[in-house]
């Protein structure tokens, strides 16, 4: 008993610097930002409190509302797209194809690149005057049109494309390692029963990949909230606000528009939305762990 207490106090002392760092750096800066969102700070922090005025203004700003809508569209399609494409890629590599290592490298390669590079590459490819559209027209199809990137209604989907292109490789790697962990005998049993391969993947393999896919979607969703560089490099938020995202709105207001108060309000809303999305998930995990503990 005595020894146990001593050990835990040693652990506490060892963890103290981490605790201090966590409290002052992570929580402290967060509290500081939230505090600023209730002030009328412009270029410098001010301590003139204005209540919820910045939030009211934020939700009157059409650019911010557009950015929320965009990040929702992008988030859902990007995560779903990455998971679907990543799983299909993993399944096809799992068929013991030749040059598997090479394909794996090729598919994972985009993930190793910066979003800025991805954005620039896709910007060139999608530009109607010298990208895919121009190349296909040069081959003779004069009426071929692929100008999503300059269309208000479609531009956000080009961001989704570029995002999936970059992120699918990660899902593929995680899913593939999950598939390799599934026993050979399940395959044999299913094949004896004469079940087609696609059906095995869908009904037997996929359910067992739950944890792997959950981990991938967690990683991808965190990327969604942070999306900034991809949009800046690909479309600059345009045409109009059609591809604006919250992170970009916050950065613009922080530096270019010298509006610390409004930017902090935006950042606070973003943090809150993450907390609201993550909290039920954490709570469920906690309850499950407790139930297990009780048994």
């Amino acid at each position, binding site marked *: 008993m005595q020894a146990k207490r001593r050990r835990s106090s040693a652990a506490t002392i060892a963890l103290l610097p981490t605790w201090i760092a966590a409290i002052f750096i992570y929580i402290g800066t967060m509290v500081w930002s939230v505090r600023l969102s209730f002030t009328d700070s*412009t*270029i*410098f922090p001010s301590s003139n409190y204005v209540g919820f005025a910045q939030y009211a203004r934020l939700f009157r700003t*059409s*650019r911010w509302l557009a950015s929320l809508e965009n990040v929702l569209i992008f988030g859902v399609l990007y995560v779903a797209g990455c998971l679907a494409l990543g799983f299909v890629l993993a399944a096809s590599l799992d068929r013991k194809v030749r040059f598997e290592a090479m394909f794996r490298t090729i598919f994972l390669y985009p993930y190793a690149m910066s979003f800025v590079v991805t954005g620039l590459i896709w*910007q060139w490819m999608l*530009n*109607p*005057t*010298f990208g895919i559209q121009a190349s296909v027209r040069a081959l003779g199809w004069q009426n071929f049109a692929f*100008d999503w*990137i*300059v269309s*208000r209604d479609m531009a956000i989907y080009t961001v989704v494309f570029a995002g999936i292109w970059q992120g699918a490789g990660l899902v593929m790697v995680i899913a593939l390692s999950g598939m390799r962990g599934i026993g050979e005998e399940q395959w044999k049993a299913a094949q004896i029963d004469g079940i087609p391969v696609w059906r095995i993947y869908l009904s037997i393999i996929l359910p067992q990949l739950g944890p792997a896919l959950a981990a991938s979607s967690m990683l991808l969703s965190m990327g969604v909230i942070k999306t900034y560089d991809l949009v800046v490099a690909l*479309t*600059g938020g*345009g*045409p*109009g*606000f*059609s591809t604006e995202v919250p992170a970009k709105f916050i950065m*613009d*207001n922080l*530096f*270019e*528009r*010298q*509006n610390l108060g*409004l930017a902090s309000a935006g950042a606070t809303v973003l943090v809150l939305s993450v907390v609201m999305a993550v909290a039920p998930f954490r709570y469920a995990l906690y309850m499950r762990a407790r139930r297990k503990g009780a048994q």
Partner: protein
Amino acid sequence: MKNKMKLLLAGAALFAALAPAHAEDKPKVEVMTSWTSGGEAAALDVIKQEFEKRGGVWKDSSIAGFGAADAAFQNRLVAGDPPTAKQSVLGFANADFVNQGLLSPIGEVAKAGKWADVLPKSILDLISYNGQVYLSPTGAHGESWVFYSKDTFAKAGISEEPKSWDEFFAALDKLKASGVQPVAWGGQSWQESKVFNMILLTQVGIDGFLKIYADKDKGEASTAGVKKTLDILGKLRAYVDAGAPGRNWNDATAMIISGKAGVQFMGDWAKGEFIAAGKEAGKDYGCMLAPQSPGMVYVADSFSFPKLTDPAAQKGQALLAEVAMDPAVQVEFSLKKGSVPMRTDVDKSKLDVCAQKGLELMSEGKIVPDQALILSPQQAGALNDFVDEFWSNPSEDSASGAEKFFAIFE
């Protein structure tokens, strides 16, 4: 012996104290700008050389990118270690610094140099806060230029510069018919709002323009002017190519240089690109103000001087303010940067046709400030947003657009 030693030590200490004091006599500056591109750096070098010729010690701390330089400056200011001088755009952005007591006034230099006599009054007002001069202007940029390729104009059969918007659109039609892209459009919001402003100036005149931006006037004349402006802006959409969204201004200028497009709306910094491509103003390309324009929209650069206690730095600030406003330096600087001197009493003979036109308008007072000079950064940003939204949405009508325009001042 001991005393002698002490004396010697004291002497050495005194000498050591005196030696740097001698170096401190020299005015010293550390200058932070975002002027890092070829032409800009060459222009800054003009000031540096004159500064050194007059006995100053120069240290360059320039950072590429306007926003990056501003962010670095703000960080150093907050940390209590500001540079001696910072390039800054005339206008609202400096008011915060002045009100926080972070900048030092240069009223004595201004008085000694008789700035009040050689600067247009509107400029003098812009560099003064609370009745004191704080900024030392370096040069103005005209923003409401329409650059056109003389070649494409000739091929399309346009013999002279269009005088009205109707003639202008007729010319664009001719350009289209001759097979070139009529307008080289820069598809970023800041570029689009420059076009908005140049059209607005043609529709409401100088007084109307100032009334809208300075007094936030929503009267009938102002609203009608904004509506007409949006109509003209909307009409331009038909003359722009599909690749325009997001296009940089220099890529648009390249379209003019290579003869792929007819006209570009841009500030006079575009001349730097023409010069680099070996094109001559008035011969290969022309510059006109937007049709029916009673004047020019301008934006201007200056140096601001953070408050410092070091006497050498203070001397450096005074000397830099003096050098930047020297008539010969102003001309040399403008030639390299493509801008217009701020002083009205300089030797005009060296300037190209476009700069001469600009200087003439400036000395006649036929100028209106850019939004950076007259709006808060927040409002200027909202203006960019507004124009960008309007431009990219062809179904928006000008009446509801005008309503949204006046909402940016709230």
